[in-house]
């Protein structure tokens, strides 16, 4: 793998929202788009988490406590970015990708790679964090633009890159992580944002915010949290954020959405960021897939996996991690649901 190639930063239309409310705050009611209905102070942070727009909102009757909690959350986001970022030249992930091995990995990297390998095994490789060589190939190919690029990268180069994709090639230990083959690389894009939001949610719960909603995804619409009832989140069609095709109720759960259109390599949308590790090209099964699970990491990984894997596998995959439900929007506009 050529180490001189600069990282390719592409904007992904992903938005992460973590909302925590105290018992009082939950009664006051808050909408995902931001307006509290009662006069409950909301402390809010907008920023980026691993390249995605992120928002943390805290509904707390004590504004000073909310600010302190928010500061803790932001610190935690920054701490984990230092580990998982593909763009921070000294992050653990960049060092691992660059050298093919890493001594003394943080517990967080060990834990996340452990999850990644588990999802790899569960999905038979449909979810694979070692897809980074393919991803990089795509990104570099389309960066130039032009008509020649439209056909996609050269077949042979895709095959070369695809041979490096195998989650089983990560040798994971507590004291050392290494790749089995030279040129392998990991991207945690499909899972690390989930992991970060889980940690933030843990922190909020630890601070006594009993009602926590996590939403990760390319498309989500304003949901509201009416007093006493679960959060309501609307799922929007790709490319049209105002048309909701589905509504879901969440209570202390996470919802993650993956959609190819969230990051397209080319204007046609035929080449996008959800790559099928088996074929080496972008997956075209669904317009978008949303998964609801207790843990954002699980929801995040499964929404990616179910974009690639056959839909028939959905109930088994959901059950394996204790996730509740998956919703897929087809290119024909059909909505399919699967339950654990």
């Amino acid at each position, binding site marked *: 793998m050529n180490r001189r190639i600069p990282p390719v930063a592409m904007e992904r239309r992903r938005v992460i929202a973590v909302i925590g409310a105290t018992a009082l705050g939950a009664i006051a009611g808050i909408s995902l788009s931001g307006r509290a209905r009662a006069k409950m102070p909301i402390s809010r942070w907008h920023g980026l988490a691993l390249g995605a727009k992120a928002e943390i909102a805290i509904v707390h009757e004590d504004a000073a406590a909310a600010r302190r909690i928010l500061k803790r959350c932001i*610190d935690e986001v920054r701490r984990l970015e230092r580990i998982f970022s593909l763009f921070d030249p000294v992050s653990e992930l960049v060092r691992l990708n660059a050298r093919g091995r890493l001594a*003394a990995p943080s*517990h967080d990297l060990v834990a996340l790679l*452990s999850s990644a*390998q*588990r999802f790899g095994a569960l999905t038979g490789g449909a979810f694979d964090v070692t897809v980074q060589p393919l991803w990089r190939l795509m990104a570099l190919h389309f960066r130039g633009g032009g008509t020649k690029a439209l056909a996609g990268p050269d077949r042979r180069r895709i095959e070369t890159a695809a041979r490096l994709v195998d989650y089983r090639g990560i040798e994971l230990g*507590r004291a050392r992580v290494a790749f089995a083959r030279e040129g392998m690389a990991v991207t945690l894009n499909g899972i690390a944002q989930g992991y970060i939001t889980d940690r933030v949610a843990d922190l909020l719960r*630890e601070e006594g915010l009993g009602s926590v909603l996590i939403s990760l995804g390319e498309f989500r619409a304003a949901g509201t949290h009416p007093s006493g009832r679960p959060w309501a989140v609307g799922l929007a069609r790709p490319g049209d954020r105002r048309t909701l095709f589905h509504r879901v109720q969440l209570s202390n759960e996470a919802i993650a959405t993956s959609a190819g259109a969230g990051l397209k390599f080319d204007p046609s949308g035929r080449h996008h960021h959800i790559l099928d590790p088996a074929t080496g090209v972008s997956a075209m099964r669904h317009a978008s897939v949303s998964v609801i699970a207790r843990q954002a990491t699980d929801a995040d990984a499964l929404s990616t996996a179910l974009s690639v894997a056959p839909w028939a596998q959905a109930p088994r995959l959901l059950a394996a991690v204790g996730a509740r439900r998956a919703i897929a929007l087809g290119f024909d506009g059909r909505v399919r649901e699967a339950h654990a």
Partner: protein
Amino acid sequence: MGWLRAGLLASLIVFSAQARGADGAGEFARAQVLAVFPGAERVGPITGTPPAATVYAKGKRAGYVFSSLAVIGSTGYSGKPLDVLIGLDLSGRITGAKLIAHQEPILVIGIATRDLEAFVARFRGIDARGRIEVGGRSKPGQVGIDGVSGATVSSLVIADTIVRSARKVARAKGVFGSGGGSRLDIDKFKPLDWPGLIALGGIVRRRITNAEVDRELERSGADPPGGRAANASFIELYAGLATPAMVGRNLLGQRAYNRLLADRRAGEQFIFIGASGLYSFKGTAYRTKGIFDRIQIVQGTRTLRLTAGQHVRLDELAIDGDPALREMAYFKLPSTMGFDPVKPWRLELLVTRPRGDATLAVARFALAYRPPPTLVIGSPPTARATRPLWKQIWIRRTADIAVLVVALIALTAIVFFQDQIEQRPRLYRGIRFAFLGFTVVWLGWWAGAQLSVVHVLSFTQALLTGFHWELFLLEPLIFILWSYVAVTMLFWGRGVFCGWLCPFGALQELSNHIARALKVPQLTLPWGLHERLWPIKYILFLGILAVSLGSISLAVYGAEVEPFKTAIVLHFLRAWPYVLYVGLLLLAGLFVERVFCRYLCPLGGALALPARLRMFEWLKRRPECGQPCQTCAIICTVQAIHPEGQINPNECIHCLHCQIVYYNDQMCPPLIECRKRNARQLARGANDITGKPSPGGAL
């Protein structure tokens, strides 16, 4: 550098600085800046929010100078603007403070402005982060400053003003740094056993059961293990910062701790970790790979890994009562790791188990540590310190408040059960003298809770210029007393206050009683003269009130007609003319009971004005009262009973003397008459024994 013209109009400059601070047009006068920031060479314009001027010394930025009025809009106890010019250096210390403008009424007389200026000057050199306790003692984490005696509340308000302004500027300018300027108290020590250390929070612990670990590992995809007791400890983990003597010396013993400190590098910290149970937190990787792969420390944005080089094994502890720990160590954290000892951190434990496919299942547990507040010096102001000043004062005076409330309940009971008490003259006398003694000694001399016409003036001012409860809440006892007086005035008139709760009134009555006991002849003023002296107090009150509408400070001079401050609040420690005045009043009081109350008291006048509004009339009279009987009129402490017999509610102080007579068949002539008649009837052998007349009824 262009200096603004000299500082005679300093407060005016401050006002303009406040108004124009945002665009940076204002400047402080050089003389003023030098007064609060010695060594200042150059001063920039007043800029920013909050508005402050940067001070330069030796060519470098050295600190800031600012006006409390501009920074926090400070007001004094008077409710009028209070302005203190404050200097702050880059280490967060106050370089000086100077009183620029104030209108504290209590200070206008009795206490010179220079006393207040001296008080303000005492803030030089004080760290703005620390707790400052006016009238308190200095101890670690707290600086005591002597207040101005007799002006306690003003002192508190001014101290609050200085500290709050300095903190606001320091925070805005980043003087306090990220850690809020707090640091670890390494030296503080007290012998503690293990439970004591746990109770202090110096060592934190977490027990993790097999069941918890198995659940987490299964969630991560591991197969369920077999045959382990679910509730048994997988690990019992202990951790804490060992750098402070309170923790390290207790754990390691004095010698080992001293050795540790002797080798300590600058900024180095020590973390103790110990455990018992099945699982080893150390593992073996530190021997082979140099890294402790089962633990990590997380603080803020940092993830810290511990290496073999940082590890010092411990085999036993010097502390009493420690559990038998299987593994113990302390880890040295060099300052380069960026670990901040005064901030919270957590110890994270990693447990792994191979899955069926040989990948690793992972479980993680965290043990949170927060430095005990007692081991942190200059903690950023806590909730307690940032409470509104009035709440702080109420909390400080809880005991006094409790005593006063009990006394007021007792007084209310006296008024409610007056009929029962009045029928027992000896009980009444005991209660009366005890209560008056309490009012003089505790309420007056000890607590300084003497209501004054000045309060009426500031209340009126507040109503006219904007009412703030906070202003009145600053003196809890006065506040409670006034609330009580307001209610009792509505119920029974002003007498309940004047006769029972006014320390100076009580002092007069008690001194007069002593004089009587010593056979000092009493002077009775002819009714006509007496009645014509009454209006003086009303005129005085109205005059003072009128003046206060123009100038409150002038009105406060006028309020000096009250001897309260001299005799009660300041314990006679005042310039001789004041003491002479009080002495004359008390001397006159020996011959004419409560002479000041009768004719001069402007507060009494103020309270008497609405006296006719009272709802209850519980003082009883007989038809014979005044016609012809004058017994009560003579015995009345303030001669409030007209020769015609009715009690003048404007003058009555509710002392209940007349009621004692009313019930006493040795004193009340109609009753005496009745008693004699009964005795005669009895002597005649009649069986009519109506010994007591029906109250108020004709005999």
